[in-house]
């Protein structure tokens, strides 16, 4: 069973790695931000699997912290990039 | 090779990578990233010291772990100060470069002059 959990963690990390190769290169910033989202979901899944397989204690809190912060990269991007790059905000006011 | 040794080797490689980025990347923000990368490499080397010090029923020596935790917080504080400096430079000169020749001819508009 342990081996199965570790193998699935490995497969998920592999799919994450393949996805990262595709989207870290862009073309747009939106694609790059998806990389942060992808590693958020896949990273949490493999983190939980590895923790159960290796018997590391207290890992739920780490995953909980990561889950809480999973949307922060996108939020920071939207927050700081919005005024610089769009024009429709100005006339919406 | 144990997983701890592997992590230590990754740490060593990260220090090299970060140092190279610190020297070779001209943009200050990239230098900050590189510096953080270098720092985390050092933390990982600490991590292997902790893991190899597993004893007394613990899976890792707590003393290096505690030092890494303080280190992460201090690294964040330093990065925040560095980012604030770069942004201030950008506000004052309209550019974020460490090249002194570029400052000699500030862009017109004189943004941020008090």
């Amino acid at each position: 069973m342990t081996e199965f959990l570790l193998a699935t963690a490995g497969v998920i990390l592999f799919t994450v790695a393949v996805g990262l190769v595709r989207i870290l290169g862009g073309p747009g910033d939106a694609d790059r931000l998806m990389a942060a989202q992808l590693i958020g979901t896949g990273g949490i899944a493999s983190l939980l699997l590895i923790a159960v397989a290796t018997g590391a204690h207290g890992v739920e809190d780490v995953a909980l912290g990561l889950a809480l912060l999973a949307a922060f990269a996108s939020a920071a991007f939207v927050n700081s990039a919005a005024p610089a790059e769009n024009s429709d905000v100005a006339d919406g006011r | 090779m144990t997983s701890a040794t592997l992590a230590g080797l990754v740490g060593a490689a990260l220090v090299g990578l970060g140092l190279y980025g610190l020297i070779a990347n001209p943009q200050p923000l990239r230098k900050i990233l590189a510096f953080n990368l270098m720092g985390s490499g050092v933390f990982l080397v600490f991590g292997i010291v902790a893991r190899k010090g597993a004893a007394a029923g613990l899976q890792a020596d707590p003393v290096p772990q505690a030092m890494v935790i303080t280190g992460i917080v201090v690294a964040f504080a330093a990065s925040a100060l560095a980012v604030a400096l770069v942004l201030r430079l950008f506000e004052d000169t309209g550019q974020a470069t460490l090249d002194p020749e570029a400052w000699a001819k500030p862009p017109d508009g004189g943004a941020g002059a008090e």
Partner: protein
Amino acid sequence: MSVLQALDIGLAFLVFAVAAWTIFAPGAFAATVGYVVYGLLLSLVWIRLFAVDVALTEAAIGSGVTGVLLIGAAARLRATESGAQEKSLSGASRVFAAALCALVALALAAVVLLLPDQGPSLAPQSMQHLAETGLGNPVTAVLIAYRAFDTMLEKVVLVLAVVGVWSLAADRYWGGAPGEVRAELPEPTLAFLAQILAPLGILVGIHVFWVGADAPGGAFQGGAILAAMWIIVMMARLTEAPQTNAVWLRLAIVAGPLVFLAAGVAGAIIAGGFFAYPPGFAKPAILFIEAFMVLSIALALPMLVAGPPRREPPR
């Protein structure tokens, strides 16, 4: 080769590849997102090293809060990237720098390989006196009891960083609130996210702080999660950043190191040693100090992310 070893090697390659992307990516924004991904992968590595406390810190500060700071900066500095032709190193000095860095990395790698399998350890000593502190988590005991002086100074570093960031304000803004004046409407999605996330996050942050006495967690990690919640609430414009000359804010930021120092001095008087805790009263004292540390961290980190004041203080 077992499955675990294969996984470790794959993880190591992934961490290295993402780190290399952060250094060699074509644009600063791409590099910054790479750094956020890298931070999350590092927490996985820390789990593999059985350093769960460190993984928690890395997850909250290394990836989350630093990510907000750097992505914000990268988005704002974007204009400088295309315009200015940065002078980069010549080919020869690049090769020289690469050789130098490879040398440093190889030397470190040699040190790692030469470490004995059972290295020197302070684990027995830290377990031996754990009962006297009343704590169950040796990492917290190291932070707040055995090496309390380090941790206190580290809190001072945070205060100094806040002072440093604030002092970058233009003269007329001194004492004002950080963040640019923006008239545009906040993103409704962001507001929705913050409204749901913040209460849950505050609960998790306090939980992480509280269990830190006996399980992985503690003041740093709990404080960082609380700080992240304040950051998202400010990003969603549900609340504005406070005036930096507000007395409560300044007091709260220095409260952590001040209470810590006061406890150290009190230890010198009552328990016969600087930062000594009176026997039988150690755990309440430690939790008391930690509570103020959480407060200071939860306020200092968002102020560091928010940057120097950008608005004039009200007269």
